[in-house]
């Protein structure tokens, strides 16, 4: 592994370790004046991060295929959670079978093979036309559009969007400063992405705890405030700029890493609020509490799902533009 990747992993390990230590210390001191509920939320988060980090690190060590398979399994599980809370009718049975057993694996196989021209459209074009047609074929027309839209949304959010995270590994990155090909670049890019998403989640939550609160949409989510969104995005932009050396935007353009981090933070917010709206409508608090004992995968990945495709395309445009600029200069 190249030194940059090691540095990045080392930084994350250090952050995680210090977060764990802080939680331990605060838990031993009930007199510190910190709300026990907030502390417990943070404790659970840190534990989820350790799991995420361990899985990601293991997948990276085993190579690109393992990483794609891992994200495929996460997608599959998230889609199960999504369909479980979404009421469907018996007529949707075969459509659901196609969606979870054909389109989901297909998308990840295409991502793994790097067929950008195909995996970018197979779900939004082919699957999205297939779904209503298959429901119509089943002969049940009750609430037809609503049912088609539910299945399409599940497939789009849980599978299509999430598959763009491992797709980051397949991007052709510019060579390093000394002219060598940047072999570890894809892994670093994905790691950078997941790190920024998780940090933006946590920092938006932390910033929304400050006393002067202006809730953005009280009917959807009373914990998301303007202070949280702006403060979180500003802090994450700063962190992204400091981590510019880990990204392929390293050719001196630290502001690019900062801008990307801001975009990730805003998309993460969009993902969180969209999932909150779905949960509000279905009357569940967490996807995890719906079925006791399951971790609630969808609760953990909502911001990744929204940020991944946008981050992927922004990075890809930047790479194309960069290549073009090199050509003409």
């Amino acid at each position, binding site marked *: 592994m190249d030194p940059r990747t090691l540095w990045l992993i080392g930084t994350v390990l250090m952050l995680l370790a210090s977060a764990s230590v802080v939680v331990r210390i605060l838990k031993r001191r009930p007199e510190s004046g910190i709300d026990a509920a907030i502390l417990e939320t943070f404790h659970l988060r840190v534990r989820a991060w350790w799991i995420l980090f361990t899985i990601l690190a293991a997948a990276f060590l085993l190579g690109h295929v393992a990483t794609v398979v891992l994200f495929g399994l996460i997608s599959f599980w998230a889609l*199960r959670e999504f369909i479980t809370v979404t009421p469907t009718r018996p007529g949707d*049975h075969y459509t659901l079978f196609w969606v979870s057993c054909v389109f989901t694996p297909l998308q990840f196989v295409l991502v793994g093979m790097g067929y950008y021209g195909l995996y970018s459209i197979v779900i939004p074009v082919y699957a999205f036309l297939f779904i209503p047609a298959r429901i119509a074929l089943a002969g049940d027309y009750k609430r037809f559009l609503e049912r088609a839209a539910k299945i399409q949304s599940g497939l789009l959010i849980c599978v299509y969007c999430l598959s763009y995270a491992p797709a980051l590994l397949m991007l052709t990155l510019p060579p390093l400063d000394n002219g060598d090909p940047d072999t570890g670049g894809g892994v670093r890019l994905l790691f950078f992405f997941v790190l920024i998403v998780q940090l933006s989640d946590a920092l938006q939550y932390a910033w929304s705890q400050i006393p002067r609160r202006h809730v953005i949409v009280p009917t959807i989510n009373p914990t998301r405030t303007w202070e949280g969104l702006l403060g979180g995005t500003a802090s994450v932009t700063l962190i992204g700029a400091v981590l510019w050396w880990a990204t392929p935007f390293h050719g001196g353009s630290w502001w690019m890493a900062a801008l990307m981090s801001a975009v990730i933070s805003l998309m993460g917010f969009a993902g969180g609020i969209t999932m909150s709206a779905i949960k509000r409508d279905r009357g569940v608090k967490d996807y995890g509490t719906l079925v006791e004992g399951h971790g609630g995968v969808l609760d953990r990945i909502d911001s990744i799902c929204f940020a991944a495709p946008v981050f992927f395309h922004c990075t890809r445009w930047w790479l194309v533009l960069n290549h073009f600029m090199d050509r003409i200069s």
Partner: protein
Amino acid sequence: MDTNLTRNLLALLARFVSGASVRWIDSQPDTCQRVYFANHTSHLDAIVIWSSLPQAVRMLTRPVAAKDYWSKGPVRRYLANQLFNAILIDREEIKVHQSPVDLMIREIGHTYSLIVFPEGGRSEGREVGEFKSGLYYLCKKRPDLELIPVHLDNMNRILPRGEVLPVPMLSCISFGPPMWLEAGEMKTDFLARARDAVRRLKELE
């Protein structure tokens, strides 16, 4: 292949497909002789209950299943006879001298537990149907058997009536507190009490 290994693999597969989370409410898994009785909505029900028991208990638990369905074709026959060690009941011709209850009592001896679906067939809606009287006669002859109510949630969406391919979703299996047939309890009272025990588990979700 080793039958026990195949059994464990099958149990794992069933757990994965059904995405089942298992809850024991005021109840504990035990190897004593029991009758697990559950609501019936899908062909997967018996397999899922069987696979959600701890291995030691699973080895001693035999599902009661319909002969007409489970003896069709070599795969189903192999599953029912070799792997689940199922007790197959002939629904078409019930003989007087060979009633299903007698068969069950003879088959379980003093070691095995049973998984039964007292609604008789799979119920269509979300409501738990009326219980058939078999459970009562079983308990009348063997009042020492512990009865464990079981509620299955969402199974009918994973494999609905008449479908062959399962859609992986998440489901929930709840095991309730043990109950017995009380001395002198009337048939209808007992069956209503048993049905309520299953329905109460549904409300706890």
